[in-house]
């Protein structure tokens, strides 16, 4: 598995798109740091970008990577290799290379800026951690979709829909429900609903660090009480972990039974 992981990792690291992804984050972060003197504000701006773009790019990368390396995968399948190792190796290689691009692209400018001596170091780490987790989640989901669907158009379409659902549609339905049932106490419902969506969950985890003044209005009490505690943070990361485990387990299950 390690060999395959290493191979797909280096393969992706040589790819033009990885450089593009890395370069984009590098330039974007540099520009933000250059334009604004307030590190806190830079992190908020970056949050918006990371929450939208990281899932999208991870999804696209996952789909493209699987479809492009399909012939090579078939070749590998002919070797004496367990399928679990083969596909999990590929998936981890993909997710790791995406995370590396993100970490380096965002991390290097901040490193030169001197983030380690800044008070915002905690917020910055939360931001990066969430970015990495989102990379793992969405590339895994994309990989799973690609594995399920031989038809590339269908695979692409589904993956885009999946991203759109988590990034936009989910919040829309969420908001509608909140407004329809506004006569009922909804604090715990909204907490539960946001635990179920990895994008929402990452957003709230970062907001709790950065924009707490807004979230601490009178309804923020429940969120603050829940998410501010060890239990809340543990549950949040547990939920994010579940979102990584779900596609991983499914990749394995589909891979084991699939007739290539």
């Amino acid at each position: 598995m390690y060999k395959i992981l290493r191979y797909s990792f280096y393969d992706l690291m040589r790819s033009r798109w990885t450089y593009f992804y890395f370069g984009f984050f590098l330039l974007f972060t540099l520009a933000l740091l250059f334009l604004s003197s307030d590190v806190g504000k830079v992190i908020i701006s970056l949050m918006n970008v990371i929450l939208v773009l990281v899932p999208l790019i991870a999804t696209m990368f996952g789909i493209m990577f699987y479809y492009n390396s399909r012939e090579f995968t078939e070749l590998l399948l002919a070797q004496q290799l367990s399928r679990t190792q083969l596909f999990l190796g590929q998936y981890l290689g993909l997710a790791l290379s995406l995370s590396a691009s993100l970490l380096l692209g965002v991390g290097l400018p901040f490193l030169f800026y001197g983030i380690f001596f800044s008070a915002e170091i905690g917020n910055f780490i939360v931001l990066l951690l969430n970015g990495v987790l989102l990379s793992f989640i969405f590339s895994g989901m994309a990989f799973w979709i690609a594995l399920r669907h031989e038809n590339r158009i269908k695979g692409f379409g589904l993956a885009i829909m999946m991203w759109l659902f988590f990034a936009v549609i989910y919040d829309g339905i969420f908001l509608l429900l909140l407004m329809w049932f506004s006569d009922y106490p909804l604090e715990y419902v909204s907490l539960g609903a946001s635990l179920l969506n990895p994008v929402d969950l990452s957003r709230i985890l970062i907001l709790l660090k950065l924009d707490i003044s807004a979230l601490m209005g009178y309804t923020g009490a429940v969120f603050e009480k829940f998410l501010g505690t060890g239990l809340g943070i543990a549950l949040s990361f547990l939920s994010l972990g579940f979102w990584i485990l779900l596609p991983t387990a499914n990749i394995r299950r589909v891979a084991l039974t699939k007739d290539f």
Partner: protein
Amino acid sequence: MINARFALLCFLFLAPAFARARTLEVCASCAYNTIQQALDASRDGDRVLVKAGTYKEPTLRITKKIALTGENYPILEAPKGQEILVIDADGVTVEGLQLQNLAPHYLKDLAAIRVHRKGFFRILNNRLINTFFAIYLEYAHDGEVIGNTITGTAVNELSSGNGVHGWYGEYVCIENNTIKGHRDGIYLEFMHFCSISGNHSEANVRYGLHFMFSNDDHYANNIFRKNGAGVAVMFGKRIGMTDNLFDYNWGRSAYGLLLKEIYDAKIERNRFVQNTIGIHIEGASRVAYRQNTFQRNGWAVKIAGGCLDHDFSQNNFLSNAMDFVLNGRVNSNTFDGNYWSEYTGYDLDRNGLGDVPHRPVKLFSYIVTRTPESIILLRSLFIDLMNFSEKVSPVFTPAGILDQQPLMHPIS
């Protein structure tokens, strides 16, 4: 003849002044061992000098026009259930003392220094540590409370008192005090024509500064930080608020400044930084807001229904999660000529004013007032898209709330 009469007059006026030059010293080895002895022996115009040491005496009642001065902060305490110092004469000065350890009392408002129906007092540079009510001005007028350091250990509202408590009075000047850990830092009820400036009020359980039924007061250059709920100005007319800093007032119902039933106030050059709500306005009218800066608050300004004639201009709104929340459909408030960091318009004729009006009320802030739980969706992509489409073609947000002349550059 005239000269002789003048000389006589001079003598009559100055005679007490010559007699006044007495200083009564209090210490273990001095002529007076307790402050009470010195007070008993003093006459109008004397100075009682208390040297360093600890004096635990029953309530000291100052009934003559004297100055009670401490050298190297002598420590004054009272037996349980008694106040430390009561000013019961006009023209008393209390300076340089350390008054401490007054236990909370649930029936009486015990105070470290109480001024009772008197005026022309001066309370200067004292330290008040762990006192229930620190300075209590009761029907007091024409006095000064300057440079005191007041530190309490308040935990909740029930068992704590106020730092400076004013109950009926006028022309009192409260300046350069540091007040921490009380119920309200400064509480003024029925106090008129007072000036509150240069104070630092921090970490009080309820409000940093609290006005009730007080008119014509002015507070300036104060810092209100991390209080339970910032500053509350209630039921008052013609109150001036200038050059203050309200910051880090965070919490469920916290705000930098609360205006309730306020008329004809002026709010100028204040800074509101990182409060849950910058200004919360309920039932106030005719208030002018000029050159204030609202930075990184949850809500910069929240206006409840029935607030008329609020005029915002030349203010800076910088990176607040929500700039404005207004309840109610009728609007008679004006918002012209402010700087909004969210403004996305342009200035083709380069006159410093944006050519497109700015809408400070976003659809999301409108939704949050109706469904408070939806705050959990703050900064989500869906909300951004929704706000954007509402901005392009307003349907839900009140159309009249506009800044017709948004500034292109912040006011410095």
